[in-house]
Structure formats: C-alpha cells, structure tokens
C-alpha cells in the first residue's frame, strides 16, 4: 500500500480527522484480538451492520452469523485471508455482506482487521448469471435427451456401426459381405378376409410376435433388416463378420418356430409361418436420403426369398450352401432336388433341430 505524503501540502490530519475518516467509510471495518475475538475498534458501518446483541462486550463470534472460528484461525495463522459471506438488516431489507479477516501486520499477528462490504450489486449480477445458466443447462439437458432419443430411433432401423459411419461421414458406403446368412419368414393362411374383419387385433398380435423375434435375433447377434407386412427378414454376418453366421440364423429360425408353436397352444388365434434360409454374399447399404432405411441386396437375398416361398407351414427350408455349414451341429432332413427359378436345380433340406453338444 502507498501512503500518501500529505506533509508537503502543509496539511497533516490529526487523530480526530483520521477517526472521522474511518467512521465515514462506506465499508465496515473493525480491529479484533485473535485471542478471544474481543472487538477493540469498530467504525460506524461495522457497528450498524453487526450490532452487539445485548451486552456491549459481546465478542465477534456472537455478532457475525456464519463465522467459522476454526477456519479463521487456521487461515490467519498461515498469513492468509479468511473470507465469508453473511447478511444483515439495513434500511428494513436484508443486504449481503462480504467479510474478510486478516492479521493487521507481521509485527502484530494477534490483531485482526475485519473489512466488510455491501455486495448487493455483485449478488444481483450473480443471481442474473445463475438464472441464465440454469436456463441454458436445462436446454442443454433437453437437447441431450432429444439426441439420445433420435439416436435410439435410428438404431432401430440400422446397425450401430452403420449409424456411427453415417454420423461421422454423412454417408454410408455400400459394403459387400461375402459371408452372410439370410432368413426370411412369412405367415401363411391369413386371408384378406381375416384382416378386413379385425385389422387392429391382427396387427397388435403381429406386433407382439415381431417384438419377440427382435429379441431372439438380438440374442444371437443377428440384425433384423426389415419387416414388410407379415414377413420378417433377419441376417447374420453383417455389419460385423462372424464365422458362425449360418449357425446363428439356424438357432434363430428354430427359436422362432418354437415360439410360434408355444404361442399357438395358448391362444385362440393360430399363426403359421414358413421360413427360408440361404447363405451367400450380400451387399448392405443405406438407401434413401430423407427416408432412409438400411437394406441388403444381391442374389443371396433373392434365393433366401425363394427358400421361404418353397418352404412349408411351420417348416424351415435351406439349400446345400447353408446345409454344408451347419450339418455337424444341426439335424436336417433331405427334401430332394427342386427347380428354383433363376437358380436351376437345387438340393433342399428341412432344418429340424439343434444337435446336443457332445
């Protein structure tokens, strides 16, 4: 601190003037003994803001609300400032006051200076900031929730890795998956009349069934590609390659059938499905710009569809390609040779059950 040398101007304030100066300050100041917190001097503002309760000799601790003696002593003894905020009644309203305590000087470490300031203006700014930051934090949280919701919706229509690619690059490159197995399921025996009689109930049941199918495909790391009407398509081997693609789909197909059988025995309405399986290369890609959907293409998909058409109610049909991949672990029965349009003569099988592990 710089001490103004007033002697040159020929004026030296006397003790009374200095006292008046201290009394007229806008801040509250006091001098206190560290030992016992006895107030040895205080100016008008300090007295006004923190009046003694009853006894004029009240120590500081009784006059300052929120004062933490332990903290004050430890800070002051380390030569630091101890500060806190409190409130006082002034002019009929309460005003926030910041209080700072420090030792008077190194020579007299047992004397503590207390400086108090009215910080109403600062508090107003803080409240304003607080109110504004609450608004923006709330908006940020809502935005985050909205983002999560959108992400969840998108993950329903495309695999996660495809979604990540789209998020990072804005587009998805069509990708060839050489090793994949495709499953197609379709319900049979529901005539147009059934649907027109009570379409709502039928769709609700179909929805229940597809939800279970989604769980089954999820359990075996398969992807549901799409449903069209009452048909359901799932695939294994993409977007992440797996050597078990044929096994995975075979397990899914058997569990779908078992679920439908169990459901039929407990419901009035019976459902019958045909399932076709084929293993082969497919191309996976996101199609569309605004209304995009992840879809798979290629002769492998067409052949899976043919397998489904040629299958029988509550049967799973596969051809030689898939059969060779799973024959050691699954029991299949031969159906013989069939002429498949666009594919020639093919040896077909029914998938019966999974062989127990030896």
């Amino acid at each position: 601190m710089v001490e103004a040398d007033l002697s040159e101007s020929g004026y030296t304030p006397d003790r009374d003037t200095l006292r008046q100066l201290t009394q007229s300050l806008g801040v509250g100041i006091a001098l206190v003994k560290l030992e016992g917190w006895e107030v040895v001097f205080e100016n008008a503002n300090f007295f006004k803001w923190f009046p003694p309760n009853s006894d004029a000799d009240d120590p500081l601790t009784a006059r300052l609300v929120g004062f933490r003696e332990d903290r004050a002593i430890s800070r002051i003894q380390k030569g630091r400032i101890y500060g806190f905020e409190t409130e006082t009644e002034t002019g009929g309203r309460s005003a926030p006051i910041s209080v700072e305590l420090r030792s008077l000087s190194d020579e007299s470490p047992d004397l503590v200076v207390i400086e108090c300031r009215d910080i109403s203006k600062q508090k107003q700014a803080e409240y304003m900031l607080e109110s504004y930051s609450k608004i923006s934090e709330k908006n940020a949280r809502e935005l985050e929730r909205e983002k999560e919701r959108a992400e969840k919706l998108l993950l329903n229509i495309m695999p996660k890795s495809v979604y990540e690619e789209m998020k990072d690059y804005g587009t998805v490159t069509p990708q060839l998956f050489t090793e994949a197995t495709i499953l197609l399921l379709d319900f049979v025996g529901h005539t147009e009349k059934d649907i027109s009689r009570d379409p709502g109930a039928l769709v609700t049941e179909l929805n229940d069934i597809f939800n279970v199918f989604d769980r089954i495909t999820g359990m075996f790391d398969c992807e549901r590609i799409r449903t069209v009407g009452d048909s359901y398509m799932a695939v294994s081997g993409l977007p992440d390659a797996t050597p078990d693609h044929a096994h995975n789909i075979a397990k899914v197909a058997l569990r779908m059938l078992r679920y439908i059988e169990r459901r039929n025995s407990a419901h009035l309405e019976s459902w019958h499905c045909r399932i076709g399986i084929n293993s082969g290369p497919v191309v996976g890609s996101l199609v569309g710009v605004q209304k995009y959907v992840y879809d798979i293409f290629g002769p492998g998909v067409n052949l899976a569809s043919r397998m489904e058409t040629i299958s029988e109610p509550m049967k799973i049909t596969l051809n030689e390609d898939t059969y060779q991949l799973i024959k050691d672990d699954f029991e299949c029965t031969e159906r013989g040779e069939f002429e498949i349009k666009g594919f020639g003569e093919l040896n077909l099988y029914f998938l019966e059950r999974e062989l127990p592990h030896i």
Partner: protein
Amino acid sequence: MSQTIFERYGGFSSVSKIVMSFYEKILASPVTNPFFANSDMKTLIDHQTKFIASMMGGPASYTNDHLERVHARLGITEAAFIEAVEMFEETLEDFDMQDDDIEQVLDEVMSRKNFIVSKS
C-alpha cells in the same frame, strides 16, 4: 444415473462463484501472484472456469495437453502449486462442499500436477 459433483453443487452458477473466490485468493497470495503478473484476467477466468468445471465432472473438457501448454513457460514451482492447491481446498471448504467431494476434486487436480509444475 449418478450425478456429477458439478451437478450436485448447483452447476455452472456455483462453479462461477468458486472460480471468483479462488481467483481472488491466488492473486492475493504473495507465493502465487507473481505467476499471474502478465496474465489477462478475461483469459484467466475463462481457463479457470473450464478447468474447475471439468475437475468437478462438468460439461467443459479441459485436456491435459491444454493444461501443459498454458503452464509451460510459466516456471511454476512445486511450492506455488502446493499453495494454490491449499487455497483451492479452502475455497471448496468455504462453499461447504463435503469432505469426500473435496477429496475427489483435489485428487483430480493432484493427478495433473506434472502438467502444471515446470520440470526443473
């Protein structure tokens, strides 16, 4: 979902007060204030808000790389670092943060000591 310390103590509006209070303390201390002699208050407040918010698990991200860069030429001593950490602890105490939360925040800060203190 468990809340971060940042969220539990009232989010950004509390952090801003902690920053202001800590800022006052380090400028008042003869041990730490020489390191801030030539720094711009606006930048300093900006850095500290982000740093303290991220130490409390808030939304700001403040990388160790960044921390190292801004402290690299300052020649921060071990003693100054310890002094600043102590004053930070006192600041958190003054805001009535619970002891185990203070400990957690300080652990975060202490683990970054090598990025702040200059290598001699």
